[in-house]
């Protein structure tokens, strides 16, 4: 496309023909307010917040959907524009439940921010206040349509990013609502609970099902031994959730959580490393069954199982491929099971008194912990799940000055982490961690990538793949893999996942191992992460994660000293009796 000349607020600049007025203004450093627009999604042009005046046009132009044409003269804050935008805002506010102090998104709401920026101190359209109405309750996600402004960002997220498409506008005109099939609610339709809709809602119409109150009660109960685990992606999200710049703040995070009064601060990274050991051995065992024993019942490619959004997705959409999913529980659930067995033993506490809390970048984890099969410790393995946002809220409520905290370390037994575990938080991370360990198990040597950095599986491309050919000389017992080329793929976002799984189902690809994360960017872009989440933010969080990997002393899961101790004293061997009892699970076909 050639460049064209446009004039924005009297300044003439050159932009690519065909880009939207909104994008050309952004390039020129001119801000235009938006609501229905989101950089991850298709254009809707339905909120009319971004109206601008174009010389010679009878009506105002919708900046987000109107392409520039040669010599277009645009005014972004003429009297006509300001009047129109104020009217749009007031009408949206009049149809909105304006009860900001009681809203989850108070001070992090695009509608509130625009009202402030446009100095809306009086709204002549406001009649009676709109009462709050919680329409939907599910383990991970709640919806209050009294706060909905019908921008359809959630609808587009569910369909375009996740190909789940369980929410749609229902009804017509003033009575239209975002709802589910037959208004059954998210809990009764194939919703994956990924929470990506929450991350794209400009207001507080969608939010997580909070467990803050239950966690405070557990902390304040002297009878309870409350342990907390923090997922890999929290350490690069928590600062953002507290209004600070994106950074890896592991030490401060540990200090803040300890300050809240938890009895032990431990790391999901520990069980991420454990997942790598168990899943790596499972993969090798499947490869042996197929390549050596000629077993036709063993399913390949094997897929990862850490992402609960992906698990719910496959249970609904590809139940015929459930044998392909690794039987490993997610790191959160492995942690839960061990916290009430191994850890209780180490700490000498009664397992019935142990309360396991997880801090997750995820709303689907709230669903996962409620699964009836997640009680292998004899108790509910994980009691409560808080999102990154909920943790930030507790830190703020406790008045903890996060930025000025001194770094602290995790407690022992289940607090050691490796770089391999940290990168679980980014798309491609589980694959990279698995390859670092599996390659070494079968060859006896480190994987031949400079600095252990397996660059082909990193980055934000939707579907990535790589092939690694095994050397001729293998470790004893793994000779069957000599010269074999291991083919792997990495996919994130459920729409990308669907594309790949269709190929797997049709037998069009011959991968051995696939990493699947439900959320765009992996867990760092999860539905429980700070808002906004967009391509720029995901890149920053990803950079922070790989930085943390690079500085950690141990970078391979099998090098984690506490993991070695766990096997020596408790589990005995990977895929052994205890592992099967506590760390592996099964899946359910769902309609």
């Amino acid at each position, binding site marked *: 496309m050639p460049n064209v000349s446009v004039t924005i607020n009297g300044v003439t600049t050159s932009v690519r023909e065909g880009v939207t007025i909104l994008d050309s203004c952004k390039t020129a450093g001119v801000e235009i307010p938006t609501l229905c627009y989101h950089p991850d999604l298709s254009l809707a042009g339905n909120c009319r917040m971004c109206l601008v005046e174009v010389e010679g046009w009878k009506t105002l132009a919708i900046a987000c959907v109107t392409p520039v044409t040669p010599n277009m003269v645009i005014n972004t804050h003429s009297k006509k524009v300001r009047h129109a935008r104020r009217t749009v805002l007031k009408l949206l506010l009049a149809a909105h439940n304006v009860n900001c102090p009681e809203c989850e998104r108070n001070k992090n709401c695009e509608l509130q921010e625009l009202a402030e920026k446009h100095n809306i101190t009086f709204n002549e359209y406001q009649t009676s206040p709109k009462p709050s109405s919680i329409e939907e309750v599910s383990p991970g996600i709640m919806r209050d349509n009294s706060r909905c402004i019908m921008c359809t960002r959630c609808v587009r997220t569910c369909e375009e990013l996740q190909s789940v498409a369980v*929410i749609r506008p229902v009804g017509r005109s003033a009575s239209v609502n975002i709802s589910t099939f037959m208004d059954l609610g998210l809990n009764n339709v194939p919703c994956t609970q990924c929470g990506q809709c929450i991350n794209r809602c400009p207001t507080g119409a969608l939010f997580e099902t909070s467990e803050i109150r239950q966690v405070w009660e557990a902390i304040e109960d002297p009878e309870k031994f409350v342990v907390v685990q923090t997922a890999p992606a929290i350490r690069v999200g928590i600062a953002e959730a507290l209004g600070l710049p994106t950074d890896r703040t592991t030490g401060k995070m540990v200090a803040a959580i300890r300050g809240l009064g938890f009895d032990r601060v431990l790391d999901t990274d520990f069980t991420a490393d454990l997942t790598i050991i168990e899943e790596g051995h499972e993969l090798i065992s499947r490869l042996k069954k197929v390549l050596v024993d000629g077993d036709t019942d063993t399913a390949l490619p094997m897929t990862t199982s850490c992402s609960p959004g992906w698990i719910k997705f496959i249970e609904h959409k590809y139940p015929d491929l459930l044998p392909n999913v690794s039987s490993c529980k997610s790191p959160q659930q492995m942690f839960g099971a061990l916290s009430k067995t191994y850890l209780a033993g180490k700490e000498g506490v009664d397992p019935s008194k142990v309360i396991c809390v997880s801090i997750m970048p995820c709303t689907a984890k709230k669903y996962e912990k409620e699964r009836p099969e997640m009680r292998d410790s004899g108790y509910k393995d994980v009691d409560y799940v808080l999102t990154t946002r909920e943790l930030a809220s507790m830190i703020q409520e406790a008045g903890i000055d996060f930025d000025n905290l001194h770094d602290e370390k995790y407690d022992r037994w289940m607090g050691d982490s490796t770089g391999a575990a940290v990168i679980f938080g980014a798309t491609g991370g589980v694959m990279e961690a698995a390859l670092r360990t599996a390659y070494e198990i079968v060859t006896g040597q480190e994987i031949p990538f400079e600095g252990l950095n397996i660059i082909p599986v990193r980055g934000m491309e939707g579907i990535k793949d790589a092939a690694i050919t095994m050397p001729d000389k293998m470790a004893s017992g793994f000779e069957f893999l000599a010269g074999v080329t291991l083919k792997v793929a990495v996919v994130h976002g459920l729409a990308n996942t669907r594309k790949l799984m269709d190929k797997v189902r049709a037998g069009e690809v011959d991968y051995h191992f696939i990493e699947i994360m439900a959320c765009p960017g992996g867990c760092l872009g999860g539905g429980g992460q700070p808002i906004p989440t967009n391509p720029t933010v995901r890149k920053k969080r990803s950079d922070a994660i790989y930085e943390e990997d690079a500085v950690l002393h141990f970078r391979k899961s099998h090098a984690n000293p506490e993991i070695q101790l766990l096997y020596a004293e408790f589990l005995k061997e990977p895929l052994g009796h205890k592992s099967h009892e506590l760390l592996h699970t099964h899946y359910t076909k769902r309609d």
Partner: protein
Amino acid sequence: MSRKPEDIVSAAVVKHGSGREAVMGILTDVNRELGYIPEEAIKAAAKAVDVSNAEIYSVLSFYSFFSTEPRGRNIVRLCNTISCEMNGSSDILDAIEKELDIKTGETTADGRITLETTSCIGLCDESPAMLINDTPHTRLTPEEACKILAGLE
């Protein structure tokens, strides 16, 4: 014996195709034959067109002529828009509700009549007007409206 919803959808797909543009045709066929669009038909249509159940539900919820609830053998739609309103449609509605002993949106116990109101049906020049199934009735009075309803099977 009427056909199963799934069978009506299958036949409609043969007629209208299985692209997204076929959705209205499929839903219209089901609605015409059963008087409403049951859940099973929505699921079958979603499967045939390869879209989510929610998308089909969203489309049909937009049109007041489609319903997901079973309705009576005859559907009365009285216009409630301004011209008909000015010429007495609300009196007619009161009379009908009293005569049939149902409220707007309800169906008589014998399944004979469902009463609904509708936005403008383009008969303002002959208002007040109503549709009974696909037939318009115009220049109504409360008495006349009730007489017409009495003649319905």
